[in-house]
């Protein structure tokens, strides 16, 4: 069974249709890359998955459980939506780290707040917090940032900030980690370090959805690729096939812009 099943998602802002009849599924441990030109609806799709936007139509299932159904208001209640978000993680294009907290605090803040809801939090407060702290350190180490744990975001380079953001998203152990153009805000010489950690996550079979303009990266790291244009999925299939010999004319046109330079 697919870990994620997206069925017929539609989203409009007023009269503009931004997503139309989006359906796809994703297997546990797979990486899905979403490519497409600016304005094709990639960000909006990730925002729908993370409950930052409410789709007008469609359903979202995780592990067979219906998390969202546009036809069923009971699936859209604020208190439950908050819990459902935890199935997904989102890494933003612009990092959105909390500037007043250190790298480590950025990673541990949400787990600490969440732990307060545990029934045994009062009794085991100290051990729980120590464990969160240790897990945070470990995540930063995985991102190659052990020596930056005490630094504030403004003291870190863009690439380092984005790696902290990835650690922050991983700290809640989401089922599916989403990346929205994780390297687009970075100087070219910094994209490599971020792509490297995402590649390592793919090797460890992290289930991921990656919106990216890095075609070679999508081809090498993703299992599946979706090409979107004008709010619809034009083509989806195995990464190598979609990027190296696309079936659709529109995909070919889009990709040719990348091979030229």
């Amino acid at each position: 069974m697919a870990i994620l099943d997206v069925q017929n998602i539609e989203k409009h802002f007023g009269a503009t249709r931004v997503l139309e009849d989006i359906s796809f599924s994703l297997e546990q441990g797979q990486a899905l890359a979403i490519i497409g030109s600016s304005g094709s609806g990639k960000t909006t799709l990730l925002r729908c998955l993370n409950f930052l936007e409410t789709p007008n139509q469609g359903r979202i299932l995780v592990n067979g459980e219906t998390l969202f159904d546009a036809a069923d208001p009971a699936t859209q209640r604020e208190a439950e939506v908050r819990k459902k978000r935890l199935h997904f993680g989102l890494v933003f294009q612009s990092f959105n780290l909390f500037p007043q907290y250190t790298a480590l605090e950025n990673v541990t803040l949400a787990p600490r707040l969440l732990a307060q809801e545990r029934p045994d939090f009062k009794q085991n407060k100290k051990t729980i917090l120590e464990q969160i702290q240790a897990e945070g350190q470990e995540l930063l180490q995985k991102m190659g940032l052990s020596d930056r744990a005490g630094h504030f975001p403004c003291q870190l380079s863009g690439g380092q900030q984005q790696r902290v953001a990835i650690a922050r998203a991983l700290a809640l152990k989401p089922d599916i980690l989403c990346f929205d153009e994780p390297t687009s805000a970075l100087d070219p010489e910094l994209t490599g370090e971020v792509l490297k950690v995402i590649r390592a996550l793919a090797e460890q079979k992290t289930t991921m959805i990656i919106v990216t303009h890095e075609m070679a990266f999508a081809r090498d790291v993703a299992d599946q690729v979706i090409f979107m244009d004008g709010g619809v999925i034009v083509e989806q299939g195995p990464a190598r096939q979609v990027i190296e010999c696309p079936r659709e004319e529109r995909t070919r046109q889009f990709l040719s812009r990348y091979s030229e330079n």
Partner: protein
Amino acid sequence: MFLTVIGALNEGFLQTLKLFAVTLIGAIPLGLVVSFGSMSSFLPLRWLTKTVVWIIRGTPLMLQLIIIFYIPGYVLPGGSPWPSGEGGRFLASAVAFIINYACYFSEIYRGGIQGVPVGQQEAGQVLGMTKSQIFFHVTLLQMVKRIVPPMSNEIITLVKDTSIARIISMQEIIWAGYAFLKGSHGYSGLLWPLFFTGVYYLVFNGALTLLFGWVEKKLAYFR
């Protein structure tokens, strides 16, 4: 004579400080409530709050003070709700000042909250935080950092505005200084005590300026 004057001025300044402190204690949290009202997605509440803020900011504090002190005495069946004497005058002043300053603060807060990028709130949402967790753990400190300069302006203005309470004869420092001109403590026609009150304001505002500078520096560790 000097000691008599200083004693009287000190007493007046104590009343000034009291009004200043009580206003801050009341208006800082009340301002937050008002700012939430003015940002509410419930339209009637938003318009009501905005109208109140418009009226309070659009009319002189002196007028509001007079209305709050005198009008209830005319309209309430039980007469004026304010206790007689200096205590009542202080209470009425405190109420007027808190309402007035809460409205000014609310607009500063609103600017501060809206100045925090939406991405901060969304990052918190995606991490499963509740609205109040996002406010207290993510937005609040960033907002505080943004509002320190406009708040320090407003607070320094408040120090001087306390003298407006003289209109209902609250015995703050200007009232105390002026008394020596009009005649009191066996002196009259004495002008310098009134001018000397300026020294109190200057020293106190100097200390506040240092304090705000320190707070700004404390918050300079993040951007």
